[in-house]
């Protein structure tokens, strides 16, 4: 128990000191993707539903944020709200239909819907198609109190958002609602026979996951100041799956680790162009064949085996 607290304290210290050691925009991007991956993992690890279209929440939230802040000239708080709300709405509509199937069909349906959203984004006027929404201004938060133009200041805002999202997920998982979700994941028929309307729970979890992914996407638009088609692409959906997989599905910390690993890797390999895709694909293959538990999962296993000796 003490080791855990120590670990948390060390992590907190690192997180607070980080912008002095690493490029803040890199850190913020990683945090956004970490939240995105956590939101995805909420659905897969705890409800057993693999969404292969999560980019549709992440990307559209970015567009909503950008439009609210730039085109309507409203404060960024409303932009974030619009992002979260918009993503939740998309989640509600697509989730209601996707929930009707399970397992692999569910994955394909989310993929198909995401593709549909992608095409809608290509055509919708307010997204500016191929160019995307560029130059979203960094406006100060809390009516001018927090000058977000300074990357380091914005870092702490993003860190706060990430911590909020992470804690929200933690609370969801450990709540009675979360217990029911786990029961549904493990044996849906049994849960139904006990009186729980599985579909409603699954849909709610889906919408929550979408909303949190939206929060990540809107925050990313705020940090990087643009929203483009890449953010709603199938490649982006695949990337978040990769992050969760690399980190460890079904562990709460795994996706965070996975996101940092992948973002770091992309940074280093940016010069190689398309080869990054080959590496990412290869990582997928290797993990599925040999390291299914992901970094955190395998480490946890190794630790347990050490304790047992």
């Amino acid at each position, binding site marked *: 128990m003490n080791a855990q607290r120590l670990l948390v304290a060390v992590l907190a210290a690192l997180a607070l000191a980080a912008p002095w050691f690493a490029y803040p925009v890199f850190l913020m991007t990683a945090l956004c993707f970490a939240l995105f991956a956590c939101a995805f993992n909420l659905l897969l690890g705890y409800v057993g539903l*693999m969404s*292969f279209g999560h980019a549709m929440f992440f990307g559209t939230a970015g567009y909503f944020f950008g439009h609210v802040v730039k085109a309507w000239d409203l404060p960024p708080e409303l932009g974030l709200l619009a992002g979260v709300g918009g993503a939740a709405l998309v989640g509600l509509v697509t989730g209601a*239909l*996707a929930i*009707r*199937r399970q*397992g*692999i*069909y569910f*994955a*394909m*349906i989310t*993929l*198909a*819907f995401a*593709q*549909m959203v992608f*095409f*809608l984004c*290509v*055509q919708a006027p307010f997204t500016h198609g191929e160019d995307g929404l560029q130059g979203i201004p960094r406006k100060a938060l809390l009516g001018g109190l927090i000058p977000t133009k300074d990357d380091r200041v914005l870092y702490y805002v993003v860190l706060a958002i990430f911590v909020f999202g992470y804690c929200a997920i933690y609370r969801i998982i450990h709540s009675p609602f979360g217990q029911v979700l786990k029961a549904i994941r493990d044996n849906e028929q049994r849960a139904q026979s006990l009186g729980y309307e599985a579909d409603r729970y699954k849909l709610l979890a889906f919408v929550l996951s979408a909303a949190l992914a939206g929060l990540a996407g809107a925050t990313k638009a705020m940090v990087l100041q643009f929203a483009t088609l890449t953010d709603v692409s*199938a490649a982006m959906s*695949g990337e978040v*799956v990769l992050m969760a*997989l690399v980190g460890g599905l079904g562990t709460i910390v795994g996706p965070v680790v996975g996101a940092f690993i992948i973002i770091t890797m992309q940074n280093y390999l940016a010069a190689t*162009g*398309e*080869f*990054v*895709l*080959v590496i*990412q*694909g*290869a*990582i*997928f*293959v290797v993990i*599925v*064949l040999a390291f*299914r538990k992901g970094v955190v999962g395998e480490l946890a296993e190794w630790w347990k085996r050490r304790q047992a000796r």
Partner: protein
Amino acid sequence: MFELLGIPPQALFGQLLLGLINGAFYAMLSLGLAVIFGMLNVINFTHGAQYMMGAFAAWLLLGLLDVPFWVSLVVAPVIVGLFGIVIEKLMLKRIYHLDHLYGFLLTFGLALVIEGLFQWKWGSSGAPYPNPIPGGFNLGFMFLPTYRAFVVVAALVICLATWYGIERTKLGAYLRAATENPTLVRAFGINVPRLITLTYGLGVALAALAGVLAAPIQQVSALMGVNLVLVVFAVVVIGGMGSIMGSIVTGFGLGLVEGLTKVFYPPASNTVIFVVMALVLLVKPAGLFGQTK
């Protein structure tokens, strides 16, 4: 001649032909996916990449060894099919005991690797492939390119041959039985693991064959399978993967629907199949020809 709702006949029939051709590819690819899924319980995300490999094989065979189209039509699927067999034996075999989602993830990763490598080596802009049967017929209400007519006919023949092979032959009976109860079929003395490998190889070869057929129509490019496979997934959800005939009918049908949409309401043509998928999910979640397993 007549005009339908203000659309001149050339435009209408031109788009319908295009729709029929697209439908032909949807049918061939969703058929391959359905056959693989039935036996292996794996959604072969790599299907799009294997379709692309078929087209590339034809292109490379022509460019490097002067192999004509008609020979590539046979050789390319064999090459890609063998490659598929290697994948099945080295990788897919190891994950059958796991949740189906891992198969999806593995084949997705493979698709990334294959498409990434091809893109890295040959870039993403396409290369043309010469039309093996140039020219066409002027039917009055439209111009029918010979090759395109050939593609539709060839696709129909391939789909029906696949249907016949599965529904009417002894090997097909083995396949159908092994899909239902692989343990029992093995207990009768049939080498089910080998049957599974063969099935994957055949499904992959089917995708590659579609790729060869596509080469003269589309540019041969590393990314030609990427968007296509996503549409085919929607086709497969709509059709239901319950029956061979169902996959064929759904594929061709949706191609036509897409073509018609392009005529009467072009902005929706990209998304109409997904909209149909949404509607089918509302009304018949198991798919038009599916059985709820």
